[in-house]
């Protein structure tokens, strides 16, 4: 049994300690906004925040996240108000299939926390998520738009 604090709520989940956090979140807790893409921390579709740090949850053991504060895409909006990254994604019509965008948004949310006005070089260095639809041009525009709002 591992105690996971996800989006401000405690969940006691019955998983082997080595179960990746991704699967504990998706299958045991039932929050499916966090996506499985590769299982080897390559694509970033599974990105969540663990104590504020964007983390690829497919390669992070659930037990290592015990008693830490986990935020998933479902918990990014606060009090019914979308996070500015989510809002920028809507305003800039970013997602195509959308499958990678939960992870993309979580990665960008952390970037903007660390670098409120990121340069293109910052974006290039920090945002390494794969998007097979190829939304990068809109992603970049939306990051700058969200940063401008701050």
């Amino acid at each position, binding site marked *: 049994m591992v105690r996971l604090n996800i989006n401000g709520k405690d969940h006691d989940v019955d998983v*082997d300690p080595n179960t990746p956090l991704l699967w504990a979140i998706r299958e045991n807790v039932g929050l499916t906004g966090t*996506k499985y893409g590769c299982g080897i921390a390559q694509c970033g579709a599974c990105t969540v925040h663990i104590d504020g740090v964007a983390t690829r949850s497919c390669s992070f053991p659930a037990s290592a996240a015990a008693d830490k504060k986990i935020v998933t895409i479902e918990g990014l909006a606060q009090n019914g108000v979308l996070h500015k990254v989510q809002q920028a994604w*809507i305003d800039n019509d970013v997602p195509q*299939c959308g*499958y990678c965008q939960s992870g993309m948004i979580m990665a960008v949310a952390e970037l903007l926390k660390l670098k409120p006005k990121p340069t293109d070089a910052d974006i*290039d260095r920090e945002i390494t998520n*794969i998007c097979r639809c190829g939304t990068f041009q809109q992603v970049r525009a939306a990051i700058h738009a969200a940063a401008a709002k701050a």
Partner: protein
Amino acid sequence: MNFVPKMDRRSFFIGTAAVGGGMALGLDFGAGPQVVRAADGSPEVGVWVVIQPDNSTVIRIARSEMGQGSLTGLAQLVAEELECDWSKVTTEYPTPGESVRRKRAWGAFSSTGSRSIRESEKYVRGGGAAARIMLIQAAANEWKVPASECSATNSLITHKGTGRTSTYGQVAEAAAKLEVPKDIKLKDPKDWKIAGKPLLRLDTADKVVGKMEYGIDVKLPGMLLATIKACPVFGGKVKSYDAAKAEKMPGVKKVVQVADNAVAVVADTFWHAKMALEAVTIDWDTAGNEKHNSATIAEFLKAGLDADKAIVGNENGDIKAAIAGAARKVEAVYNYPYQNHACMEPMNATALYTDEKCEVWCGTQDGEGAFGAVVQTSGLAADKCDVHKVMLGGGFGRRGRADYIIHAVQIAKQMPGTPIKLLWTREEDMQHGFYHPITQCKMTGTFDKDNNLTGLHMRISGQSILATVFPSAIKDGKDPVTFQGLNPSGETAFGYSVPNLLIDHAMRNPHVPAGFWRGVNVNHNAIYVECFMDELAHSIGVDALEFRRKLMGKNPKNLAVLNAAAERIGWGKPAEKGRFRGLSQMMAFGSYVAGAAEISVDGDKIKIHKLIGATDPGFAVNPAQIERQVAGSFVYGLSALFYGECTVKDGYIEQTNFDTYNSLRIAEMPVVESICMPSGHTPWGGVGEPTILVAAPAVLNAYFNATGKRIRSFPLKNHNLQIA
């Protein structure tokens, strides 16, 4: 977006009786209204539109949304003719089973070949217009005035004489009882107010909060999870397997063989199923295919480059005479590798089978194909089957196949009454694709003594997609899809006039299954033709644009997009120091497309500063989404150019994940400018795929201009070239 129709009595009879034996089709149930209702009881006004009392408008979309935006585009087309309030539009998918029960009321479901909009624009616009006419008629009937005195806009009907108004919601019930009109005159696109506009997509909100449901997210009561391992060597079978250890592992419910070539574990969670599957030992019969590898396949194809026998795709003049009499000849051999689609969401489907029913929930690009697969695999009558479509986490052609759906049903049949979600690992997905076909190509060009191009022979040797996915469509040994962009006429016509031309195909089908992969055969055909055009131009010292223009007099639409791309990149004007340019053009999926790249090269690093994509799809339903498809297609095409290769070792695909099959990241994304220049041609052209073809040759031609090096084999990582 689940569509659960509730029918009035007469329609209900049609619905339940029609499919199984087909005997009830066309039965006359007597006079009187036949209203079909959506799940919430709101009436259908024609098959495409449901109007709710508060004016909310539900538009039916038969085609699949996988990111390409056609769900929004199709809704725009219906709404345009319907004259409804766009802010109150939502969409829903009818199920393929329901479509069959209603005599294919929504037409084709396929979203492959960039066809969703171009192949259904007429009848979906007609559906919107029919509903508008019915709603106006219903209001006119109520007011006892001629319908011709009434008009509608923004879901409001107005009678000119009296100024009386009625909302669509108020007359929808009455409208639904009217005959659906035929032979409707559609609007002139010049008058469009909703279609043709760069509107935001309708499906974004759920995607930014994690609420959009993909196949991987489907949840049913009592559902179990499965994961599968098929024989890594294509064509191989399961000889035997030992599941003793796996069966004792946590959460495992059952270990099953699937067809003759795979083993699956069913467990309470995917993770448990995956752990247990790794503990199953499987002995494979690799059927002799273990002797194939990339080198043997390359040799097999190479022999086709000079084979006597080949199927002609396009021919005029006498190429043999042209070659024999040439003052000069230019030759080059190119090749193009296998590539995986690598949709972000690995293949999956959820199936529930009982003796009475078989239902599947999945993302599919081909709802009717999926439905057919469910009917066939379940062994049940069609009226006991259905497919519920959900959002696709990418398609790119891969989800036009039903293999993963068939597997899910085969597993579910072994556990009747229990919903089974089959989810592939990324590794399974990477190693069991329907790969971009592998080809080689020998290009031969001939000049007379005055440097006029007298002949062109393009010999493609390699794989036919139809030989894998639709062998019965191969007639007299010819796979017509091979000649995309190369045909004498039609929606994929060759854009150049050459006095003596021969384009032929020596079909060589290795054991690796091929499939439709975004862009399909134009990915390599455009590289072969467009890089070689530059080679020919360079060989006589003529500008690449001028050389092409001379051959394009009979193809003004090809030339128009090429000119537009060239002008935008500044062709003919000096580039910034250290920057070099390249061009490309072709016709595909009914659209004329051209590209222009500007790059710089620093050692083994290629920086693409700008990539222009010009497209003439005939009509532009949503320019903003077209722009996104152009940029997206370039990401897919450049990923293929720089990284995309699946190699074969001992009969299996060596790449297993994104660490060995890389994909473009944001740092490598060039600035993309799209030029949308619809010229009003019919039939309309597609958007999702065509522009992918221009990315690679434009960059390769620019690379030659920068370095003098001509690259003819791919991906570029094999030449130690990186995208900066």
